């Protein structure tokens, strides 16, 4: 090579040697490489605060933009086998009459204040009159709030065309989901299921067994039935075995029809622990409802305000008229309402209806909620829609798998894919991770104070952790974190005690005060601070970032809530010498971390109930993950 280069003309030679010098860096390549590396590191370090800030800003703006009508896309059917709304329906006025007769009998039962057993017995008899094998199931749950008992009734329609290895469920609970089971009865939903049982039996096109379940209570009845059907045991549940069993349940429809008639059908889909059904089920139902039943569909019970322009409410009502009329703002405010409702259910792991219990057993299920109105639809429409939806579900050759399991439904026919919303929380967690690693590097330097640090950053030597290394008190930081998690465990154990639940008004504030003092006790026992505060902050940020980014896949709403609550607060924790700032910081971080003990008594009760009866891990998550993170942040401030 050398010889060849020498033979070239002088200009070639010059340019080549120049190039080589550029790459090799003249005499000593290693020195140039080191310089380059240092320059790169120092320029990176200089830009890191901006980069971090940008990540936070982009992440939060992205979260706010999720309801935007410009993001997301229209829903579509992914599974070819479904063929929704492609069949003639046979449900007719005669069947509506049958439903009306059932309704009369149920209303009579309601008026005489019948017990659960009486009702279940009545339902069993009615199913048997139709020629279906039927049975009842007693159950009782014991939780720290008391005993819940009830009786379910169910019937089985064996498939005339299949081996009975697969099944679909149509269910209705005794209590409607109105007000999360506040006592409104779902009599028309039950009448629909009874009338459907008689109707569906007349047709021989079912390739899957159909199971009719009338569950008692709101969620508890179906939980007991499903647990027994799948043979899973819970230590606080005693129930009769399910005598009549069918095959694997693939899909389920839960009918909730509390009013006299309805204008829209609302679809509820969030399950326990933030699980969602396959989107194909929602989309099929939505299409069938519009095309076969001619009933408009909405998400939840949110009727789009654009359909009734005279009633403007919510976010938009505070805006000037010109903005109120802007279609984009109208769409955004409506979709924001839907997304907020979704986050409310998913983040707390709460089921938005009885369907949510099915998801735990890998059954795709939704609740069809007939939004009470003065008209125009009734038994005729809902019967046809359920019939057609069942025909669609009957077409399935394998479990629903093609469409999305991770999505945010912004409107009944619009949704966001996982790739379009997930990065928002992940960006924030990356920013927290960067902050954590930066703090870790800072903790390893001899000069702690900011001025010295800035000097170092500006200096030509750049930033290398090996420079003046200092031992970081890793062991003590880990010890504090262990203690914080043990405290979380103690809090959780305390919350699930009957004593605590009964005296929550008194004991919750006491617990709040105890939690707020623990960091001071830890700080006093440890004494010497040094860089411990920095190391702890770094670990706290890294752990929080890890938790957020990992939870995004499991439960995006919970992850984004964590990102909102912890993102900035954890990043700006610092110890301070002034007493006043310390007091303010302590108050703020205590409220952030344990404020729910003062303000959210109802939330605590329902979260503990959900954990004890339905195994929703929101309560343990808050106690074992969130509270320790807040405790550590508080400790950083008081160290």
């Amino acid at each position, binding site marked *: 090579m050398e010889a060849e280069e020498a033979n070239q003309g002088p200009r070639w030679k010059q340019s080549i040697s120049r190039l080589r010098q550029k790459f090799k860096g003249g005499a000593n390549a290693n020195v140039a490489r080191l310089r380059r590396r240092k320059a790169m590191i120092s320029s990176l370090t200089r830009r890191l605060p901006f980069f971090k800030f940008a990540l936070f800003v982009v992440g939060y703006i992205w979260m706010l933009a999720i309801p935007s009508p410009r993001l997301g896309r229209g829903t579509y059917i992914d599974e070819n086998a479904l063929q929704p709304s492609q069949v003639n329906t046979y449900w007719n006025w005669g069947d509506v009459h049958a439903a009306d007769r059932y309704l009369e009998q149920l209303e009579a039962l309601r008026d005489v204040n019948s017990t659960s057993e009486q009702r279940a017995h009545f339902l069993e008899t009615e199913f048997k009159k139709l020629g279906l094998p039927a049975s009842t199931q007693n159950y009782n749950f014991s939780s720290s709030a008391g005993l819940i008992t009830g009786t379910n009734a169910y019937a089985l329609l064996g498939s005339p065309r299949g081996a009975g290895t697969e099944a679909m469920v149509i269910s209705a609970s005794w209590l409607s989901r109105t007000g999360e089971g506040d006592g409104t009865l779902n009599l028309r939903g039950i009448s629909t299921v009874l009338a459907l049982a008689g109707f569906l039996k007349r047709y021989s096109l079912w390739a899957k067994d159909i199971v009719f379940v009338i569950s008692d209570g709101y969620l508890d009845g179906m939980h007991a039935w499903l647990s027994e059907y799948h043979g899973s045991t819970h230590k606080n549940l005693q129930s009769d075995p399910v005598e009549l069993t069918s095959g694997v349940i693939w899909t389920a429809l839960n009918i909730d029809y509390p009013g006299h008639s309805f204008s829209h059908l609302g679809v509820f889909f969030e399950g326990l622990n933030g*699980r969602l059904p396959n989107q194909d089920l929602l989309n099929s139902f939505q299409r069938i409802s519009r095309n076969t039943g001619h009933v408009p569909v909405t998400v939840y019970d949110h009727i789009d305000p654009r359909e009734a322009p005279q009633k403007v409410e919510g976010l938009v009502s505070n805006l000037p008229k010109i903005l109120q009329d802007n279609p984009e703002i109208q769409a955004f405010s409506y979709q924001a309402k839907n997304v907020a409702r979704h986050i409310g259910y998913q983040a707390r792991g709460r089921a938005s209806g009885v369907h949510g219990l099915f998801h735990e057993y890998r059954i795709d299920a939704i609740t069809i909620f007939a939004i009470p109105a003065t008209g125009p639809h009734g038994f005729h429409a809902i019967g046809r829609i359920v019939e057609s939806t069942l025909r669609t579900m009957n077409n399935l050759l394998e479990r629903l798998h093609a469409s999305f*399991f991770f999505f945010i439904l912004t409107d009944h026919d619009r949704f966001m894919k996982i790739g379009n919303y997930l990065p928002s929380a992940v960006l924030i967690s990356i920013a927290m991770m960067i902050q954590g690693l930066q703090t870790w590097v800072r903790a390893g330097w001899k000069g702690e104070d900011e001025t010295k640090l800035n000097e170092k950053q500006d200096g030509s030597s750049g930033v290398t952790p090996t420079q003046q290394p200092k*031992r970081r*008190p890793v*062991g003590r930081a*880990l010890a504090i974190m262990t203690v914080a998690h043990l405290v979380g465990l103690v809090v959780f154990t305390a919350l699930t005690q009957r004593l605590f639940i009964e005296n929550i008004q008194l004991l919750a504030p006491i617990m709040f005060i105890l939690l707020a003092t623990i960091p001071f006790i830890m700080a006093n026992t440890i004494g010497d601070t040094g860089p411990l505060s920095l190391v702890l902050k*770094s670990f706290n940020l*890294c752990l929080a970032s890890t938790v957020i980014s*990992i939870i995004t896949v499991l439960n995006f709403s919970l992850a984004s809530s964590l990102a909102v609550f912890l993102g900035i607060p954890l990043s700006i924790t610092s110890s301070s010498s002034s007493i006043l700032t310390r007091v303010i910081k302590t108050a703020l971080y205590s409220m952030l971390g344990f404020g729910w003990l003062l303000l959210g008594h109802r939330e605590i009760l329902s979260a503990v109930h959900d954990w004890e009866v339905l195994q929703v891990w929101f309560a343990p998550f808050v106690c074992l993950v969130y509270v320790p993170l807040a405790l550590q942040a508080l400790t950083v401030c008081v160290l």
Partner: protein
Amino acid sequence: MTLMSSSKTPSPPASTLNFSVVLSALVAARVALTLTGLPDVLRDDHQLASPLTSFSQLQEGIYLFNHGVDPYSGGTFRHSPLFLTLFATILPNSPRICSLLWTLCDGLGAWALVQIWRARQNVTSSERDGLIAAVYLFNPYIFLPTLALSTSSLENTLMLILLMFAARGKASPALLGLAFLVHFSLSSIVLLSPILLLLNTDQFSHLASPRPLATSIRKVVPLLGEFVVYFCLLALSSTLVSGGFAWIPQTWGATLMLPDLTPNPGLWWYFFTEIFDHFRPFFLMVFTVHLLIYIVPVCIKFQHDALYATFILLGIVGAFKAYPTLSDPGLFLSMISLFPEIYPYLRHPIVTSLLHLHAFLLLPLFHHLWLNQGTGNANFFYASTLVFACANGAAIIDCLWAGLRIAIGKPVEGYSIVQE
């Protein structure tokens, strides 16, 4: 996690607590863990027990064996015939008693680890003993597979015991242990050369003062011969016990041919589920040879400290072997506690720890999303195994760097170290 906990500031002078008391307390805590409901939940977890190490499959093999069916005639039983005979005759077979046995084996492993530490430091006891035992016994990568009764935990114990003998210069027991280990898990053959090296040199730390190999390489030959004799004897007895050679393709063959593509935290299974069949033999060869190419460079580079070479190769085997469980990388991570001299030279311990934290949380989560919840698919779990591989890789690279860097001495202001 392991990295962090062990780099804490030196504690006040020798605590009076007796090491045996600490060890018994730790083991007692571990026994308490087995009494919870965890073992039944974890038994068949893919991350804790591979087809080659699963307790359920061992029991099935014993059932077939006791009922006069050759367990190696089907495709389910892939344990060594020696395990089969041991569990069919002397050792208990009920999960409850086995839990205890497994935990005691872990305790033995921790004890052996402490013995290695003492031999390396040339002391009879030290204040780090309790810490080292705790790092082994409470490493989640170690105790979870033990709760799941994976036989890989027993292999880890065997590994530590044979290393203990090797560190004490007791050649024959060490070679016999190694023969057993290779017999149980063929990938361990990678460790043969550093252990032979260790038997020929000493166990003390020479990381800070490297020197060329003092002894002649020819001295290795009789030791190698001894190993081959032991190994052949074990193979012969296996053949006698199982009544034929059918066990070879089912046990060693499985490591090489990967017939069972049950998911595990390693890197092989997904690759071979996706690959076209006509490329399979080639890539099996590539994956197997890949494990072997590290032996010579690592042994040459660490010829002055064979124990460290063994440690690095253990990490490589744990990360890249065919049917790994969490306990394989776990052994490597716990062994970091043997080499406190390298801690100041670790380059990115926090990054490695965070990678392991992510992997440790992601593996069960994505496994659950795919196989229990049904909302994810195989790619999810595969992605988490990649994170795990990155974490293992980062740990190995970091230890490799620190082990070499220590020889250059303390960092000096204004000077930088560059690798040519």
